Each structure stands twice: as C-alpha cells, then as structure tokens.
C-alpha cells in the first residue's frame, strides 16, 4: 500500500473507532462535550443579526470576520 493510502486508511479507522465510541455514549453526554462556547470576534459582538439572503450572509462573513475563523468561501 502506498504511504498516502496507508495514512488515509489509518485515518478512516480512527474515525470509525471515534464513531463507535460516541455511539456508546448517551446523547446528553455527547452534547456536553460537543457544544463548546468560545468567543468568536465580531461574530459574537451583536445580540441579533438578520440577512435577507444566504449570499448576503456569506458576503458579510467574508468582509467582516477574521479569515482564521474559516467562514470565508473556498
């Protein structure tokens, strides 16, 4: 097996192990570890925002949010 394929295979096996482990935990516990509140600059600085269209929202994210937050389009 090529090194890249072997790495992909290992990665996939790790993911399956994670899915199986998650499946053994009740939903309430999964949620406790899944929802984490961390401050996101700009995004978290207004109590309410509404956008006429998803395109408007995407444009606003690209124009206003730090790129490292990952909200920009590929």
């Amino acid at each position, binding site marked *: 097996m090529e090194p890249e394929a072997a790495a992909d295979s290992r990665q*996939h096996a790790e*993911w*399956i192990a*994670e*899915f199986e*482990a*998650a*499946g053994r935990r009740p*939903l*309430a516990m*999964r*949620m*406790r*570890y*899944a*929802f*984490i*509140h*961390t401050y*996101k600059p700009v*995004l*978290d600085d*207004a*109590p*309410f*925002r*509404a*956008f*006429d*269209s*998803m395109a*408007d*929202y*995407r444009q606003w*994210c690209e124009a206003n949010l730090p*790129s490292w*937050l*990952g*909200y*920009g*389009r*590929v």
Partner: protein
Amino acid sequence: MGAFEYRQAEEVRAAFEAHGVRYLFIGKSGAILLGFPDTTQDADLFVENSAGNGQALVRALRDLGFDLAAEQQNEILRRKDFIQLKNGPFDLDLVFAPDGIERFEDAWQRRVTADGFPVCHPDDIIASKQAANRVKDRESLPRLRAFRDYWKAQQEKGV
C-alpha cells in the same frame, strides 16, 4: 453565555412543539444529535418558511426567554433567510433557506428523529455544507461523509 446543553435542546423541542413550529436541526449540531463526535458552538435550526410558522416561531422564542425587540421580531416574521440570535439563554441560528436544500418539505420527508429531536438527514447536512463551501466546512466534510456512511450502515443493521 454558556454552551448549548441537552436540557436546552429539550426546551426548544417542547416550546416548538407547543407552538407548532416546523423545524429541523441542521448543520454540525444536527450531525451531533445523530452521533457525530465533533464540537460546535451553537445550534442551527432549519425552519419552514411560511407566515404561520414565523408567527409560531416568535411565540416559541419568547417562551424560551429570547429578548426580542419589536424590530427583531419583525425580521423573524419577515422570515429573512438567515438570523443569528445571541440575545437569549443560548445562541441559536435560524435558517429559512439553507444552501443546498431546495425545499423544507423535501428535507422534512427525509428527516431523522434522534431521541425525539427532528434532524435533517445526513445527506442534507452534507449537501448544505458542500453548497456553503466555506473553509471550515471543507475541512470537516471528509470526516462528516465518513460518519454519514457509518451511520447508514448502522441504520441498515438496525442498530
């Protein structure tokens, strides 16, 4: 502001049911409800785009403790495509027209129920993230697709 908790998801479900709001959990929060082990910040809800549903939604949000000014209430009643709420007991994103999903009714027909929570089918969650095509979505999609395949296999096995 604390993180979204199971108890709050139950409160959303109860309030939305009491007021007859038609909605589905979507995005990573939806995938998490289905068993996807990952982290996220807030809950994303795909809400049916109809006048009656918008009115029911405002009533349910008030019951949940969201502090909606008149103008904010009007924005929800106008059913703008995307609304971010950070003025309540937890953060909530309301999506009336998610990328990658044509009609609410189609997603509703394909929905999955997890612990009584209505959730978009993983195929719809993936379609939405693919269409959004953000950097953070692009990074998470391979693992989410692997989860979708694992989840489908489990469903076929009746697990």
